[in-house]
């Protein structure tokens, strides 16, 4: 019988092919870490891992889109620091203008965050436009914007971190909860839900996949491919802006070097989650799992008492293992 878009009974290998190597690998590693240190699966630690995952997950969901349309976005790390400095500078500037009326700090927080996120969005649109219209390699374009954005960040901050922000910023966006749920996690859930709908329920996701798989097929199907390539980079930068603002709220000050290691981890998370370098593949649940996997790895190894260099080596090996396995399993038979 023909199936109606559902998984029917398949061999174990076929099943593995469907879900990828990540879920079984996760199960193995969770068991391993928990044997090493039973604290690993305590409620507190699990919540901690999820909270730490938030920023990386939002970033990786964005990074997934340039990967799906067959490109790269290397500027998102720089955008985190950029969003951090822009948002806090605007907030602080505003604080000076108002002589402490009651609502002012809240308004300033909103303005600061909006300014940072919109500026990031603008940079993403520039990335996308140059890539789509001038056919410059995404690698070059986003490296270039990375250095430009880094320079702007430095000039705006004058080389110092930004302190003295409204209390509400950290208290609400950084450490606040609604109904017991940390606000950053709620952001992540909201964004994940939105992105899932975009990718799986709307036509936009289909277009992203199709363009990445074969841009000529997209053109032949009457799709304005350039528009969607720009959209992919715009969303990527937009989410980097949000992630940057949330991370800034968490640390409580505008920091010039925030998020530097996150860019490579975001790409790793997306690729681990099934996004193909070269385009055409990638999905939200996979990317979330990928982000969780990377955070969990470092948490588990922390609990084991491994240093960050040993961790880096282990993560690197696992990345190669996971991607190589997927590549092998996905080969046409």
């Amino acid at each position, binding site marked *: 019988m023909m199936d109606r878009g559902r998984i029917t009974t398949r061999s174990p290998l076929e099943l593995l092919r469907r879900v990828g190597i990540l879920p079984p690998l996760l199960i193995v590693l969770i068991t391993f870490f928990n044997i090493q240190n039973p604290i690993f699966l305590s409620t507190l630690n699990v919540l901690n891992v999820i909270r730490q995952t938030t920023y990386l997950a939002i970033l990786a969901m964005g990074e997934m889109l340039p990967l799906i349309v067959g490109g790269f976005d290397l500027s998102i790390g720089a955008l985190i620091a950029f969003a951090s400095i822009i948002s806090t500078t605007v907030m602080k500037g505003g604080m000076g203008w108002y002589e402490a009326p009651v609502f002012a700090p809240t308004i300033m927080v909103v303005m600061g965050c909006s300014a940072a996120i919109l500026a990031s969005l603008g940079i993403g649109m520039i990335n996308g436009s140059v890539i789509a219209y001038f056919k410059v390699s995404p690698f070059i374009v986003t490296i270039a914007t990375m250095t430009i954005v880094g320079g702007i960040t430095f000039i705006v901050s004058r080389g110092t971190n930004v302190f003295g922000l409204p209390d509400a910023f950290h208290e609400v966006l950084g450490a606040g909860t609604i109904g017991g749920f940390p606000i950053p996690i709620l952001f992540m859930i909201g964004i994940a839900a939105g992105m899932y709908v975009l990718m799986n329920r709307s036509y936009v996701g289909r277009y992203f996949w199709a363009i990445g*798989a074969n841009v000529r*097929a997209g053109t032949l199907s009457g799709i304005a491919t350039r528009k969607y390539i720009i959209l992919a980079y715009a969303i990527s930068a937009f989410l980097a802006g949000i992630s940057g603002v949330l991370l800034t709220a968490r640390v409580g000050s505008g920091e010039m070097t925030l998020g530097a290691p996150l860019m490579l981890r975001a790409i790793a998370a997306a690729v681990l989650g099934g996004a193909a370098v070269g385009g055409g593949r990638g999905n939200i649940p996979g990317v979330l799992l990928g982000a969780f996997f990377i955070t969990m790895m470092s948490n588990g190894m922390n609990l084991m008492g491994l240093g960050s260099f040993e961790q880096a080596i282990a993560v690197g090996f696992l990345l190669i293992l996971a991607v190589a396995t997927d590549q092998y399993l996905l080969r046409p038979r």
Partner: protein
Amino acid sequence: MTGNHEPLLQMRDITKTFPGCLAVDNVDFDLRCGEVHVLFGENGAGKTTLVNVLSGVYPADKGDIYISGKKVSLRNAHHAQSLGISAVHQEFSLIPELSIVANLFLGQELGSHGLLDKREMGERAVTFMKNLALSFDVDLNEKIAYLTLAERQIVEIAKAFMRDTRIMILDEPTSALAETEKLSLFKIVARLKEEGKGIIYISHVMDEITGIGDRVTILRDGKKIDVLENREDITEAHLIKSIVGERKREIYPELGTEITNKVLEVNNLSTKSGLKDITFDLRAGEILGIGGLPGSGKSNVGRALFGLDKITEGEIIMSGEKLPKHLTPSDSLKRGLIYSPADKLEGLALCRDIKENQSLPVLLEKFAVRGFIEKAREIEAVREQIEKLDIKPDDMNKELQYLSGGNQQKVIIARGFLKGATIFIFDEVTRGIDVGSKIGFFELINKLAKGGAAIIYISSEIPELLHLCHSVIVMYEFSIFKQEDHKELTREKLAHYLFALEGRALK
């Protein structure tokens, strides 16, 4: 003269199959020192496959190759080259990002201790090009990417001559050359002959074959039909007759008779890709064939109508409405015209599934409500097409890369059905698929026309043009050479038109 009669090359019982297609069937082929031996036949007759076996591109399934009487088994293209077999292929083998010099010396660079001697190579290349006497006035340090098509072809030829060659394969070497360059090439060929080399020459141009051929081997459907041993026998009449002869019969459905209103009118269309002054009409229920040799511009007609080639002059009127001059694929799709490209891979997203590939062009229009996809409706529609077209496998979640060529083609046709298209353009729809599926396609296309669709059927297969189409346009050098009704058309006439030989009487 045919030089001495020592056999330089003997190919015995060569057989090569591709999935669903017997490309070369027990062919014997001989080449002597100092002769030009022409391979002649229709498209798909097996010429290129045969020389690809000889140049080590792929191994034969069966058969032996002897060079100077010694049996050889070719491992790969590099091995063939080391045995003195050089080839100028139809597809270029140049690396666009490297200079002309670097391409000429590719794989046999000069230098020592791992360092390249660029000066030596540059000087030798200049001398070499001068000796070749091809009119070539380009700085040899220029990158291939900046050369015109004709210039690339000259470099390609030069590269083959650079090597120490005993057997030279020239597969349609003149298709991009100007007259003077062709003459220079023939001079080089003459020189090679004098030096006692053997030349295998594939061409569709009659004057070239009758002009430089010493012998001609004629292939049809992968079989050797005849060898013209004497120069006196190599005449146009002989050659035409040889490809016209009876061949295995494919079954064609009876043509529909209900041809109604005009749905497409093309007036004096010219394009940037080179089409000149194309004018024709298309009516509902009609299957209009477009034929032509490779490089005749037949595919460009389809591409222009779909908005893929830039229009410079003329107009396209679809159902009474003039199309915008800057036509895009989405303009054409919107008006119910769908195009299936000659290169199937161009139209398909191989790593996505059947469902997504089928519904891609119609997603917004048919299945999306306020941007959201109504999956149940989509699945229903896709499933209906899978059943109707008998797409295998019938699992709509299967990625396209796991489908056969014929089934991939069906997915593209399904798009047209989903779209409710009224005009279908098929470009080489049966290329590379087996006979059974071919017959299925003929019936499908025939039924489509009987149902009121208008069809443009671009093909290089003479029988298909002859039996499947109501009327046939033959392209030559990017213009319409001739349009004729199928009732008037015969194999002989069509073959003549393809080679632009109208009016010259058969001897």
